[in-house]
């Protein structure tokens, strides 16, 4: 087990990247993420839901930082919290009709949905309980300072040698182009 994973605040003076207070940060961030997730699905007002989702996204970005994934955390903040949620808030303002906040907020078949979700939860619980023995009990400490560089090598490197995802990266850019065109064409009033 990584010796840095001890509880409490340690005075890691010249320790560089030794994590400090990991359990506290984890429980705070995880609790925040789950509590905000509950708020997303239970608020009557769509803007409150969107704000709760922003808190969830930021908490998950914090969890990524704890998992030695700073680049993914940065991408999460820029794309999700800064881009997608702004888009959601714009659309909420465009389609905001007052009567929707005074009606019922759960749809007609909500018992069925809840039952299905409970079945899924039972499945997850049984998988985690039974499969606990399968997870190797180790946590690697990924090098944090070269994380961006290594991801860049995998994304942009020479296809076949080091860049295993170069082709997928190009396809992703095509996907984004198609999405932009689709969104523009669908919402234009006159093509």
């Amino acid at each position, binding site marked *: 087990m990584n010796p840095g994973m001890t509880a409490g605040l340690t005075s890691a003076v010249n320790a560089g990247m030794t994590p400090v207070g990991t359990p506290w940060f984890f429980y705070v961030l995880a609790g925040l993420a789950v509590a905000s997730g509950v708020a997303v699905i239970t608020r009557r007002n769509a803007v409150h839901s969107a704000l709760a989702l922003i808190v969830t996204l930021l908490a*998950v970005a914090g969890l990524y930082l704890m998992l030695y994934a700073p680049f993914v955390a940065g991408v999460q903040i820029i794309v999700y919290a800064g881009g997608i949620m702004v*888009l959601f808030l714009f659309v909420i303002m465009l389609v905001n*009709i007052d009567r929707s906040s005074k009606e019922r907020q759960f749809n007609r078949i909500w018992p069925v949905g809840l039952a299905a979700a409970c079945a899924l939860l039972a499945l997850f619980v049984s998988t985690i309980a039974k499969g606990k023995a399968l997870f190797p009990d180790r946590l690697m400490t990924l090098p944090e300072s070269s994380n961006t560089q290594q991801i860049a090598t995998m994304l942009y490197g020479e296809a076949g040698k080091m860049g295993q995802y170069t082709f997928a990266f190009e396809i992703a850019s095509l996907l984004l182009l198609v*999405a932009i065109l689709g969104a523009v064409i669908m919402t234009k009033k006159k093509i």
Partner: protein
Amino acid sequence: MVPITTLHYLVVAAALFVLGVIGVLTRRNVVIVLMSIELILNAVNLNLVAFSRMWGNLHGQVFAIFITVDAAAEAAVGLGILISFFRNKETINVDEIDLLKW
């Protein structure tokens, strides 16, 4: 206190996933359904990054970046569909959006 293992992150991801599924299946407001889908995608991302740390390579993180890109594209298209539907039928209620053609 027990040290934080991969299992802790997986439990958080599973909780977020189930919350997202509940949101998709039980809410009336289409925008909140789309937001619950984003919750599901984030849960999957968290799962991938936790496993990436467990195995010590970066494949999980790259996959998570691709899923984030994909989620952005899907949110844009989904909201576009919602807006063009709203223009036609003036409602954002999943109970009332139930006909392919009327």
